[in-house]
């Protein structure tokens, strides 16, 4: 039976990249459906009524949302090129780090680049407090998942994808050579992978987009949540 796999995404969403990378690593053909988030399609809203976000994977007409949930589904549905560890303990550990990444690392890193003055100083301390765990996790390993790219590398793809762009826009280095030699090496190894490389959006396009996004947080006070 012919498979129909569609990915609702934007050209830049790091969460959507997780999904397309996973499909690409497994050699699963799919169709990209690009969304304009300022004017979401009725189809997207139909497929993801709860969060109304990208990415959404639609497999033979059945939708799934939330990138980490989608990655688990992709792993269970297409068993070639396993991306998750086989051992349950290692799987639990990978899931923990992925959650830590999304719940703590990402907001803290983003916070550095949208805040100003004293709040930025505090945000930097928080971000380093989180990033150091990533550096430690890479000890003795080429990738978070070991010798090859796996689930956790895809989950942390945003570090490779976004941080240097933010750094360039704001003229601020967060991931420096002194503190993060392993993380910087990982970023290079990750980006050098042919599949990752091919899907990488053009840097100047990323700079333009994020310049506008980061700019929208200034001159307001840092967002309260």
């Amino acid at each position, binding site marked *: 039976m012919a498979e129909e796999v569609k990915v609702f995404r934007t050209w830049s969403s790091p969460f959507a990249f997780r999904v397309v990378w996973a499909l690409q690593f497994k050699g699963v053909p799919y169709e990209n459906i690009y969304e304009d988030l300022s004017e979401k399609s009725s189809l997207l809203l139909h497929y993801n009524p*709860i969060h109304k976000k990208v990415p959404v994977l639609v497999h033979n007409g059945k939708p*799934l949302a939330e990138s980490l949930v*989608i990655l688990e589904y992709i792993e269970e549905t297409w068993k070639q090129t396993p991306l998750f560890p086989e051992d349950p*303990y290692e799987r639990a*550990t990978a899931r923990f780090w992925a959650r830590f990444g999304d719940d703590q690392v990402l907001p803290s890193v983003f916070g550095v680049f949208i805040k100003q003055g004293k709040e930025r100083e505090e945000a930097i301390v928080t971000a380093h407090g989180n990033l150091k*765990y990533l550096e430690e996790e890479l000890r003795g390993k080429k990738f978070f998942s070991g010798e090859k790219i796996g689930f956790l590398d895809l989950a942390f793809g945003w570090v490779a994808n976004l941080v240097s762009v933010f750094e360039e826009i704001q003229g601020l280095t967060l991931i420096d050579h002194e503190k993060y030699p392993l993380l910087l090496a990982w970023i290079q190894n990750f980006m050098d992978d042919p599949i990752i490389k091919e899907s990488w959006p053009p840097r100047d396009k990323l700079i333009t987009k994020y310049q506008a996004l980061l700019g929208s947080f200034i001159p307001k006070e840092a967002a309260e949540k």
Partner: protein
Amino acid sequence: MADELVLLDTCVSMFGMRVRIALAEKGIKYEYKEQDLTNKSELLLKMNSINKKIPVLIHNGKPICESLIIVQYIDEVWNDRSPFLPSDPYQRAQARFWADFFDQKAVYAVGKKLVTTKGEEQEAAKKEFLEIYKTMERELGEKPYFGGEKFGYVDIALITFYSWFYVYETLEKFSMEAECPKIVAWAKRCMQKESVAKTLPDQKKVYKRVLELYGLK
């Protein structure tokens, strides 16, 4: 070789209760170690140096953290009985989605606002609280459990918050049964299970404790 299992937890934690229910469902023996979160033990700080939170399940010396991750781990290791997740990948993904949705909504924090704030803030919290449960109620539909015919992953994720319904209802004078009848019916159905009934504390006890915890009358 016998498995050695230790659970670091606090008796009132709704997250810890998920793990206890999961262990009970699988009939797994473990050692329970009550933690004092105002004076965290060396063991807790060592086993969860990242977040320093409970629950932590220690399996043959190796720690697993985050309640839903622990529940999945238990399901995968003791996969010969009482599965929590369905076997179909799409159904599994749906279960993971709904448990994640519920946690993303931070029901505990919303509930806290509901009972500790006043005026507009409280009204907003109440609205949010009920919206979350109404969404879950729609997802439940006519099924006996979120897992379908059988008690499963999403049921475990949600049921532990049932012990606080009495708190919200009494302090804020509304009825969950009136607002979300299917959820209440589902909760009572879950309470018929030994693993749930033995794990969830008495609602009136929770009420007393919450009054102390939040300094309420």
